[in-house]
């Protein structure tokens, strides 16, 4: 495949995808769909097996709710317990249009904020449903005993969050994701005890199996014994999270991976908007080559901290020794109106720019200062500790530096992906019977996700969408009987075992981590915060080379039939090496800037993202054609009837 063909999307065939959005007024679509859905006879539900892969918010909520309805549910997760899925690490909160603060919030306003915040690249009908369901989620979680923050009168408390003018975020200390996940996990364990869910932790899905064009099960590897086995079902739900770890360093957990969705993609599920990745500006920078993951710190720090780097390149003095005249408060300089509160993407890119100029601070020069000196002088230590005490403590625990004594160092990091498997309104992928929920689908966030909206989407999908739409799929019938001895399963098992043996037999020199790190660095440099035709073209040349090196230079010790963490990593990295190419290809084809996708060729004179609604108001859904083969682009046109298209403005 030539690079020219990659760079010329116009020549690719464009086939509109059917999103199956119900007709009628926006506010009535979900009600209408729920009425249209076919129902399964209660006595027949137990005869249907549903596999749920991933046990985070979306997966655990879906599995528990499906089991409650009477279906026979089988769950898989790579962690040693369903409770450890990465949803657990979400800190801030969950949005819901409850209007408890009487500040004018409504379903309509949450819908509007989410479509606009997503930079007009999401599906209006889905976003509206999400806003409608947000209120049910809070009811559900409160009843489960999620210890949300409360007012003295006993009512639920709220706080405001990124960008919104209303206070609609519910929270449980700084551990909202943990508490929501434990609520869903406990509901799941209740179904385990009832015998309705069979839970298989420490198991990794390595292949999706389709029979007669429908998703009929998976092949999974038991991560303790190494046994590869087939599991049949009438429907499969993937709730396996995002692919931020393709960048190696991200705020995701070490084990987060794209293997489940990538295997499904290779079996025919279209992959939508892979280039929509989100970068968070306030993370703790890496401290050296050994860095294994990055930690996010709340953005609220930018309310009182001032961001700067030395004016001179390579200024190695301690920050306190650098006088104000020799500091560059670059956000205040570049964006005088918003200053240190410039939006996430702008702030992130500015930090990268000054570091690229050689003015970054800390190990490797990949960091900028976030300085509270002036705030301490203005407000005093007590006030600041009340506001940020726990963050100061966390920073000190990780870096060993006390933010009271010296400025913090921060740097942007990848932490969420808006892209994922394409799904229709019912959250079904292009493979009948394969549903995708939570971050794993291309979701309701368009090109940019607003704060406190990831938890909302995961639980809306899991508790309130999947249980209905999976039932409808099953009720429509046409799903034949089959057993795990079916040829399609045997082939898939053989494929998995072949891949395992191949990893073990390469006998090269380097562990999978070595290649993963290089891939991450490459993507971060060429397809990170700022992307250009040139950088993406370079990445698309280098990725296949790195992939070849991986397949000849990898070393996996041990055997397949045992607990082998190197083998697990090798499989995940192999899939990342393919996904990375699609990510760059999508970024190259999208000749516009929107949300988390910033192409340097497409910006306003003051550096803001410049969308091209005429050409790119569509979901780009890619069809797999083979490793190294050009994928086929399918387009789902996006129509904005209720939120008028407009330029996001930060002025």
């Amino acid at each position, binding site marked *: 495949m030539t690079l020219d063909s990659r760079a010329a999307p116009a020549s690719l065939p464009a086939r509109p995808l059917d999103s199956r959005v119900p007709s009628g007024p926006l506010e009535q679509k979900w009600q209408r769909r729920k009425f249209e859905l076919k129902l399964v006879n209660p006595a027949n539900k137990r005869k249907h097996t549903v596999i749920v892969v991933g046990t985070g918010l979306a997966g655990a909520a879906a599995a528990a709710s499906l089991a409650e309805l009477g279906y026979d549910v089988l769950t898989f997760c790579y962690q*040693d317990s369903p*409770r450890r899925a990465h949803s*657990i690490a979400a800190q801030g909160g969950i949005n819901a249009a409850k209007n408890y603060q009487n500040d004018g919030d409504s379903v309509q306003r949450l819908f509007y904020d989410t479509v606009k915040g997503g930079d007009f690249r999401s599906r209006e009908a889905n976003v509206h449903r999400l806003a409608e369901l947000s209120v049910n989620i809070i009811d559900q979680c409160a009843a489960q005993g999620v210890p949300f*923050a409360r007012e003295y009168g006993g009512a639920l408390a709220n706080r405001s969050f990124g960008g919104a003018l209303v206070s609609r975020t519910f929270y449980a200390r700084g551990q909202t994701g943990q*508490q929501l996940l434990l609520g869903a996990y406990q509901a799941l364990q209740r179904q385990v005890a009832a015998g309705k869910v069979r839970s298989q932790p420490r198991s990794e899905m390595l292949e999706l199996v389709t029979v007669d064009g429908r998703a009929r099960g998976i092949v999974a590897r*038991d991560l303790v014994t190494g046994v590869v086995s087939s599991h049949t079902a009438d429907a499969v739900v993937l709730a396996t999270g995002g692919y931020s770890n393709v960048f190696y360093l991200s705020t995701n957990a070490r084990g987060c991976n794209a293997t489940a969705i990538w295997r499904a993609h290779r079996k025919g599920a279209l992959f939508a908007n892979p280039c929509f990745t989100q970068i968070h500006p306030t993370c703790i920078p890496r401290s050296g080559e050994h860095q*294994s993951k990055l930690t996010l710190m709340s953005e609220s720090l930018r309310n009182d901290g001032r961001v700067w780097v030395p004016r001179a390149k390579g200024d190695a003095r301690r920050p306190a020794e650098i006088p104000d005249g020799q500091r560059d408060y670059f956000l205040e300089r570049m964006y005088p109106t918003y200053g240190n509160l410039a939006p996430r993407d702008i702030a992130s890119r500015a930090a990268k720019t000054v570091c690229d100029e050689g003015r970054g601070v800390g190990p490797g020069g990949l960091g900028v200062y976030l300085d509270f000196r002036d705030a301490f002088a203005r407000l005093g230590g007590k006030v600041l500790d009340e506001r940020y005490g726990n963050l100061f403590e966390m920073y000190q625990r990780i870096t*060993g530096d006390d933010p009271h004594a010296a400025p913090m160092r921060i740097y942007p990091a990848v932490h969420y992906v808006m892209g994922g498997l394409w799904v229709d309104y019912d959250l079904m992928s292009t493979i009948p019977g394969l549903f995708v929920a939570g971050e794993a689908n291309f979701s309701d966030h368009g090109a940019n996700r607003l704060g406190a909206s990831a938890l909302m989407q995961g639980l809306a999908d899991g508790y*309130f969408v999947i249980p209905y739409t999976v039932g409808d799929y099953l009720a429509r019938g046409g799903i034949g009987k089959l057993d795990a001895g079916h040829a399609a399963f045997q082939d898939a098992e053989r494929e998995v075992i072949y891949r395992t043996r191949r990893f073990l037999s390469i006998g090269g020199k380097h562990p999978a981590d070595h290649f993963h790190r290089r891939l991450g660095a490459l993507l971060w440099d060429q397809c990170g915060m700022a992307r250009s035709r040139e950088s993406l073209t370079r990445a698309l040349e280098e990725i296949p080379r790195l992939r070849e090196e991986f397949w000849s230079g990898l070393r996996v*010790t041990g055997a397949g039939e045992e607990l082998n963490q190197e083998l697990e990593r090798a499989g995940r990295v192999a899939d990342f090496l393919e996904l990375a190419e699609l990510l760059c290809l999508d970024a190259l084809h999208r000749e516009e800037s929107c949300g988390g996708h910033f192409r340097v060729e497409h910006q306003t004179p003051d550096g803001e993202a410049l969308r091209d609604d005429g050409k790119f108001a569509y979901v780009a859904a890619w069809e797999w054609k083979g490793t190294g083969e050009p994928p086929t682009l399918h387009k789902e046109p996006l129509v904005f009837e209720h939120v008028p298209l407009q330029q996001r403005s930060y002025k």
Partner: protein
Amino acid sequence: MRIVLEIWRQRNPREAGAFVRYEVPDASEHMSFLELLDVLNNRLVEKGEDPVAFDSDCREGICGTCGFLVNGEAHGPLPNTTICQTHMREYKDGDVLRLEPWRAAAFPVLRDLVVDRSALDRIIAAGGYISVRTGSAPEANSILVPKTAADRAMEAAACIGCGACVAACPNASAALFAGAKISHLGLLPQGQPERPARALSMTAQAGQEGFGHCTSIGECVAACPAGIQLEVISRMNADFIRAALSRRETEPIATVPKPAAVRVQVAEPPRKVE
């Protein structure tokens, strides 16, 4: 800095294990403890040796996946800190550190520093929940919860389920873990209907799994990275006694069987090492 590690190596649950000595001559004080093991492992792989198996995931102290003993201390020396959040700056050049897995009969060693903690999941399955059917919940603000109760419930709910309390306890008791969940749910009005049954089932499950009894020594609290307090065990005991006294003999206490396909057959449970 130079760090010497003596690590428990055990190939699988059936074979015997032993300590093996490794050295990382060029550790950086900025490394987290687990990054030190990453570096060691990558070098072992490049030499063609089996890397040390250890569990970790979020590496920011919240998922509860990581954990092992460092010189006999669960999660190492720092209070309220998981081993993933412990950095090498806590140690000195030349330190010799002995790493071993959680030691408890209910946590069989799967490999090296990796143990099977599924018993904790079964304790939750036995009763660590509030039964609420999806979609049947009342309007959230129709259940008022006093702020102090919500805050206390949150403190107990902060448990990350890592198992350090069990590893630190001379009796390998899971009382702090079970007590934290019983307290979290029992402090809230939503948790009242199932409160007696919960205390009976969860404690019965813990016994069935082979966890020991609590003798109020408090080692668990010292090891807990989530700051769970001993009072959760008092709450559990109070709930248990109240429930046991008001229970009718004929009412069954629900526990959860181990899954049919038991993954690990332990020939000989690892002994607890002092």
